[in-house]
């Protein structure tokens, strides 16, 4: 298989510009590679070849003529998580409920990506309705970690992360509610960023927990992430929670001097709380940043310990209402054997949703119930404010916070699926950024026993530029992105 697929998106565009590579030939290569590797990886729920070749022809014409290109990512193949709408394509959310649902409209991010001339190669696998950390709850089966096919790629954007790590796509769009972009990015050795809440329109993203969900890039390099983020950010009147904030050119901030910049490391996510190789990787990063002139200090964020329990009240509460529309009446799975209206709704949902989704609907319904609302939901909202406040206090002094993305590297398929609480705890360091609405980036920071690990950088609201710049500095230490993951080395050289 062609050696061009391991290029970064930015490198690929240079090849297009010089016309050493045609978009169409790369697209043809990539579909060849996807088809060869899918039996091992299961990253995709569907391919969008027709759309891809249409876009490829158009972009080749533009590059040939030397026309003004629609974006710095024109012609770059991208995968889209299967909870984001592409008009006329299925949006399944990897649920039996929506397995035949065809989206009647484009998500705002889809529109932006298509308008930017990117080439959609397919829809990627996820945990059912994005509820999970491993893609094991997908009706299409588990995606595999390209570094070790016995392990999960993480989740819920596991298919997205695997597709980029295995060079089945140069870029991916995922969504992150409690770490669903960053955790799989760390497990698969790629870059993933959850933007500030409100940065990217949620219109056309099937909602899991509306106050936490954000769409974001999964890419091979920080530069690619910056370029893709520039394309998909911006105020959108279709999403009332979208922020009307200027969008800086994030890619231009990369490589800026970090001398004197103050970085905080929370004690709570170090030492015994994390595995030894990850603690070591964190130490290495601290040494590196210090060598660049940054001031790195240990701090304490007391409210961090409440983040996971609070999340598992707020996210299910919102989900229980967001998923109420799946009642079998207008679209989606309908149980036709039911005798009454109540039975039809109950059975359509009973058969359409998997166990993890049901578990969260039950939790969410419970915490919103009369008599429990104050003790759970309202209390959780107060704790959420506290977490936000603790972060904002830190940002009075520090420009960014550095911590591991996950406590451990990727776990084995089946290892945690019957132990939901230990699965939930894997999100301990990703959840806080969602609770506080902050931008958070995961970058590859090393390999342990053949498995990639990642570090996370959290920044001030709307300061993705600093987060990306710090990530860019760190990434140069490892230069990870051209590597061929061990699990697919026989397919790609």
């Amino acid at each position: 298989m062609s050696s061009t697929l391991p290029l970064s998106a930015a490198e690929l565009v240079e090849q297009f510009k010089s016309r050493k590579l045609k978009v169409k030939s790369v697209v043809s290569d990539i579909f060849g590679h996807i088809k060869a590797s899918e039996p091992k990886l299961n990253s995709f729920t569907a391919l969008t070849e027709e759309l891809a070749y249409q876009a490829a022809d158009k972009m080749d014409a533009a590059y040939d003529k030397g026309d003004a290109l629609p974006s710095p990512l024109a012609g770059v193949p991208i995968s889209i998580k299967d909870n984001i709408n592409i008009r006329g394509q299925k949006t399944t959310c990897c649920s039996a409920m929506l397995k035949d649902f065809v989206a009647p409209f484009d998500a705002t991010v889809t529109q932006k990506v298509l308008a930017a001339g990117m080439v959609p190669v397919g829809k990627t696998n996820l945990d059912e309705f994005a509820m999970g950390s491993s893609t094991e709850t997908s009706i299409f089966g588990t995606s595999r970690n390209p570094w070790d096919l016995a392990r999960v790629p993480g989740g819920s954007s596991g298919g997205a992360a695997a597709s980029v790590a295995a060079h089945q796509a140069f870029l991916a769009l995922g969504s992150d509610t409690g770490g669903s972009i960053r955790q799989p990015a760390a497990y698969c050795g790629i870059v993933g960023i959850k933007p500030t809440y409100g940065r990217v329109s949620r219109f056309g993203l099937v909602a899991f927990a509306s106050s936490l969900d954000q769409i974001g890039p999964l890419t091979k390099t920080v530069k690619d992430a910056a370029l893709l983020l520039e394309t998909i950010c911006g105020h959108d009147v279709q999403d009332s929670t979208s922020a009307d904030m200027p969008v800086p050119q994030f890619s231009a901030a990369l490589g800026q001097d970090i001398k004197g910049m103050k970085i905080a490391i929370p004690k709570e996510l170090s030492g015994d709380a994390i595995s030894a190789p990850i603690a070591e990787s964190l130490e290495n990063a601290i040494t590196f940043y210090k060598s660049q002139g940054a001031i790195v200090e240990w701090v304490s964020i007391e409210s961090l310990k409440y983040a996971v329990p609070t999340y598992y009240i707020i996210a299910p509460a919102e989900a229980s209402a967001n998923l109420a529309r799946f009642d079998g009446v207008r679209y989606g799975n309908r149980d036709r054997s039911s005798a009454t209206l109540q039975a039809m709704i109950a059975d359509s949902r009973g058969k359409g949703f998997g166990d993890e989704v049901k578990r969260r609907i039950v939790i969410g319904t419970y915490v919103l119930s009369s008599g429990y609302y104050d003790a759970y939901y309202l209390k959780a909202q107060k704790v959420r404010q506290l977490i936000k406040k603790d972060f904002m206090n830190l940002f009075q002094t520090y420009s960014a916070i550095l911590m591991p993305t996950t406590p451990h590297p990727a776990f084995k398929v089946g290892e945690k699926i019957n132990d939901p609480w230990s699965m939930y705890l894997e999100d301990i360091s990703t959840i806080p950024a969602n609770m506080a609405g902050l931008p958070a980036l995961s970058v590859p920071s090393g390999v342990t026993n053949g498995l990639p690990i990642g570090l996370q950088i959290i920044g001030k609201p709307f300061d993705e530029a600093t987060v990306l710049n710090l990530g860019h500095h760190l990434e140069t230490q490892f230069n990870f992105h051209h590597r061929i993951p061990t699990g697919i080395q026989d397919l790609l050289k």
Partner: protein
Amino acid sequence: MTQFEPVIGIEVHAQLKTNTKLFCRCSTQFGGEPNAHTCPRCLGMPGALPVLNQTAVEFAIKAGLALNCDIQHKSVFARKNYFYPDLPKGYQISQFELPICLNGHLDIELPDGSTKRIGITRIHMEEDAGKLVHQGAEAIAGSTHSFVDLNRAGVPLIEIVSEPDIRSAEEARIYMETLQLILRYVGVCDGNLEEGSLRADANVSLRPVGTTPFGTRTETKNINSFRSLERAINSEITRQTALILSGGKVIQQTRNYHDNTQTTTVLRDKEDSHDYRYFPDPDLLPLLVSQTQIDAVKTTLPELPNAQRKRYMEQLGLSEFEAMVLVQDIPMNHYFTAVLDQNPQIDKTELAKWLVGDINAALKEANKGFDNCPIQIAHTASLLTLLTTGKISGKMAKAFIPDMIQTQKSPDDLLAASGGGQIDNSDDLGPIIDQILTQNPDVAEKIKAGKTQSANFLMGQVMKATGGRAKPDLVIDLILKKVTG
């Protein structure tokens, strides 16, 4: 025997008269092919998000100001969760803890002429649900299948909740009528009970006269006219009274009113009531309304019915009856105002008299109304001028009106065609009266003998001969003079 006092509160759902729905840009038009006015948002498609209609916010503020409410600078949309096929998202977006309007009141006028103030607890905004059409039965029970029409889903409503200040079915009706008029006046609601753009639920409880604690209340639904509001409340008062007197206890429940039998039946008991699990809708930011915005809406608020009626009586000199009719008939009132605006010197009391009386009657006769009135404003003005300057008689004016409606001719043209104006001098009328007297000697004798009413018959003859143009009082004068003279 214990005497009971009813304690009544009314919840009114009013459909806001916006062109588009509350959270999408679909039309709010009544009727239409089923599901023609729908889009991914109001169908609750995956990935669709609500976008608030600012006109609906403005209308809710307008209603709040007209009902003397405190407009809240911050209100919050919440999700009210329940499953039903006419509710596409599985929750209704409504306002719960923080509504847009609080602490208002409405003054109603009772039949004895006194005024009573009814408190308005709150007004909140919400979206309507769709509608189910059952086949093979009236309700879902027993039907073979049911169709879902979501044209109405997402149409903006305000719910106006009164304090339990109402003490009789009649007061409730007057409250509702006054409220309807105000909402129509400020132009935020059609106020059509039959089409459902205005719906009332009545909360009724009883307590022994002279005591203060409230009794257990019931909520009565399915009220679709002022008459049925009054009847439903009375039937509930009767039922609760009988129940208590027979040693029973009123239980908190929702009841359905049936107009054909004038009774209420249980819809659901409190135990069966939904737990709606309200929580703030995370898809919508809190609704922030600035004082500037409230002040801007205030300037668009028209004069309200009570104030206008007083002004019509005190400043324009209209009778109480005419002022009342004008205030209650908004199209007629607009027409009245338009004529006045264009003809400030016109006789206002005469204008009101003619609009309320003959013009209104003739329009009704012709199946027309003051909406798109076929009589041009200028024509009405010239009719009044001809009348007040004595160029035509009231009788002539009355005869012109149907023609003005049918042919849209001006009164001046009609006057010319009729052969001239009012005959108001004895020189012209004398010979005609002489002729009539000659033709009717027996009548003349009767008048001479003192039966002066018989002169009316002769006047009829004179009118016939003059095509109605003779000045009536002058004709009578001349007849009496000639006969007795």
